[in-house]
């Protein structure tokens, strides 16, 4: 507390009251008000200390993520590029090709766009946007827009000549559907659905069903990895907790060294060990377990990803388990045994239930980390070891379908946040400790 606060704090209490009988401080102000002021000031000091970091995180971390999530529903391209066409389409019955007035409006929109400065032209983004919905849209729009100033009435015929897509009612249904500032179509695509000719949401054809299966696989791999870290982490955490402090600290290095070693180093270590000409295959060949032609494929597939990620995430399971097990008094198990329990019963009924908070903490931690993992699956995953993060990265970096990337990312983020909320309910963040 700063000395300047001293004037607000009552120094002598008791002998002075005002006309209404309220206690006064030595300088004559009501005690209650003085205390409130002091409290308010302390609250402001506390807030002031937190404010810089809070602002920093909100601006450079939270806002970018909210903005990215917004991309998954944001749909400005059609509304901005085709205002006249959309107005004209309101009259359309939605079955056959629209009438001349719609084509005329499209002509006017394209012509108006032509006159804008290049940086403000809307046809490019429109072509990209509609191409997500129907694959011929980009060429239809780019090619028609290029020659739009040579077009003459009747416009319907001119457009039908310019590109075959304008002869297809589907494109008009898409323009009408996507002619709103918000869209659900990225989410529709992200759950392997699509719009049919009648505009209903249906299952996508089987060769284009990717994401639900990928989410399922990501989920299954995370479950397997979590279980593996538990199966390997439980014995060593238990062993460490039974050792005297100095010995435990020494062996703890085996857990902490991987934890502190670069992720890329650990991933390349597994490439070195598991690849076709790698150490493990060479050893197995030398020992005669397998022959040279039948070297095992242990990397660039799901197996490699699971092995490498189990190794990478094992410390996250061992550390919370160990910190819980250390607090369990060994006398409980001894008491159970002296009362006639077999070692197995004593373990199952007395010891194991007490480790549950540690298992929950480690399990949720490992699961949350693995469900959003990117680097290891990208490097050693090959085709069938890919996870949802890899697909998000692909849509951002190479296919440039940012809306779909945002939709997939939002779904991933929401699942992680739900898990984290459960984690907090189960164990609380206090059990997160490092080193």
């Amino acid at each position, binding site marked *: 507390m700063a000395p300047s606060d001293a004037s607000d704090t009552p120094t002598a209490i008791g002998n002075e009251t005002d006309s209404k009988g309220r206690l006064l401080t030595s300088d004559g102000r009501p005690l209650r008000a003085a205390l409130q002021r002091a409290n308010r000031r302390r609250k402001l000091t506390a807030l002031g200390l937190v404010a810089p970091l809070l602002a920093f995180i909100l601006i450079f971390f939270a806002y970018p993520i909210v903005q990215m999530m917004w991309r998954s529903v944001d749909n400005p391209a059609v509304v901005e590029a085709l205002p006249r066409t959309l107005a004209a389409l309101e009259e359309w019955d939605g079955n056959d090709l629209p009438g001349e007035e719609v084509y005329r409006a499209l002509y006017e929109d394209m012509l108006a766009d032509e006159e804008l400065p290049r940086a403000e032209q809307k046809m490019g983004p429109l072509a990209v946007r509609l191409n997500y919905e129907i694959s011929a849209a980009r060429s239809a729009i780019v090619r028609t827009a290029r020659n739009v100033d040579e077009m003459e009435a009747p416009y319907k015929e001119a457009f039908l000549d310019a590109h075959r897509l304008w002869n297809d009612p589907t494109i008009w249904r898409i323009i009408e559907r996507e002619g709103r500032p918000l869209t659900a179509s990225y989410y529709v695509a992200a759950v392997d659905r699509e719009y049919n000719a009648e505009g209903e949401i249906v299952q996508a054809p089987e060769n284009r069903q990717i994401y639900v299966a990928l989410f399922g696989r990501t989920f299954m791999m995370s479950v397997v990895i979590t279980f593996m870290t538990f199966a390997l982490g439980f014995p060593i955490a238990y062993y460490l907790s039974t050792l005297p402090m100095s010995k435990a600290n020494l062996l703890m290095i*085996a857990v902490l060294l991987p934890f502190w070693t*670069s*992720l890329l180093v650990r991933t390349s270590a597994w490439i070195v060990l598991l*690849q076709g000409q790698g*150490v493990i295959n060479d050893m197995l060949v030398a020992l005669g377990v397998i022959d040279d032609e039948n070297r095992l494929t242990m990397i660039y597939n799901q197996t490699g990803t699971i092995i490498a990620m189990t190794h990478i995430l094992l410390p996250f399971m061992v550390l919370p388990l160990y910190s819980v097990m250390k607090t369990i008094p060994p006398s409980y198990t001894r008491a159970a045994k002296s009362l006639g329990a077999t070692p197995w019963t004593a373990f199952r009924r007395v010891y194991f239930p007490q480790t549950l908070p540690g298992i929950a903490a480690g399990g949720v931690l490992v699961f949350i980390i693995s469900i*959003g993992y*990117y*680097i290891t699956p990208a490097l050693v995953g090959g085709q069938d070891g890919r996870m949802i993060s890899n697909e998000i990265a692909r849509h951002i970096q190479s296919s440039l379908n940012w809306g779909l990337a945002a939709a997939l*990312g939002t779904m991933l983020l929401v699942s992680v946040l739900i898990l984290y909320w459960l984690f907090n309910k189960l164990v609380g963040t206090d059990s997160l400790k490092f080193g």
Partner: protein
Amino acid sequence: MSLPAYYTTKDKVWHYAFRVICFAIFFFLLAPILIMIPLSFNAQPYFTFTREMLTLNPEGYSLRWYQDFLGDDGWMRSIRNSFLIGIAATILSTTLGTLAALGLSRAEMPAKGLIMGILISPMIVPLIISAAGMFFFFSQINIAQTFLGVVIAHAALGTPFVVITVTATLVGFDQSLTRAAANLGASPTTNFFKITMPLILPGVISGALFAFITSFDEIVVVLFVAGVEQRTIPREMWSGIREDISPTILAVATILVLISIALLTVVELLRRRGERLRGLSPQ
């Protein structure tokens, strides 16, 4: 260690079997990391032990991959970048994080749970999502592919560790010490630097180390936000693994393992000192 006299044969077998299992798991944890150290001295461009290496023939060993590494401009630049970005991000996140932790540990702090949740969110949100969000936003405000952008991103990712470690140190902090100092006439600044800071320093340092290692080891955000000029060591390794896989990576990996051993030692010493000061350690 001798076994208790009442152990039956079955107990004894189980006792030793359990130890064997545990040491196998410790082996699984350590071996992949340690095996790279001898392999990095391989004279041949292979990722496996050659006959010469196994027979300990000196000709099987060489320093060529270290030479390769030290003579390569890309790698040297990446080392400079990694330290530059790491140190700048650490200073930023440690300053902001320590201040915030001081505020959060005050009893008067309003909406503590909510604010804490926001502040540690960079630790919970999957990196790919943080990276994607920053990629879009940083491009808009023109700090993508700049050092400033990478430093800001890494500082944001490192702050939760500082906030958590410093808050944990402050739990056992005796507030009457600062009150006594204030009573004796110390200004809030003097009070902070003379009283609070020395006491929470171990927490601040280990938080700073976590923030540094976070930045030093970070790759996902670098992939999205950094340009060629800002390539860090993990980014160079990423290309090394994906494009031309050569044992130079093993030489780099060995150096990084040595760095992590050094960092681990520092953190462990700090932790022991902290425990001793707080009287927690039975030693």
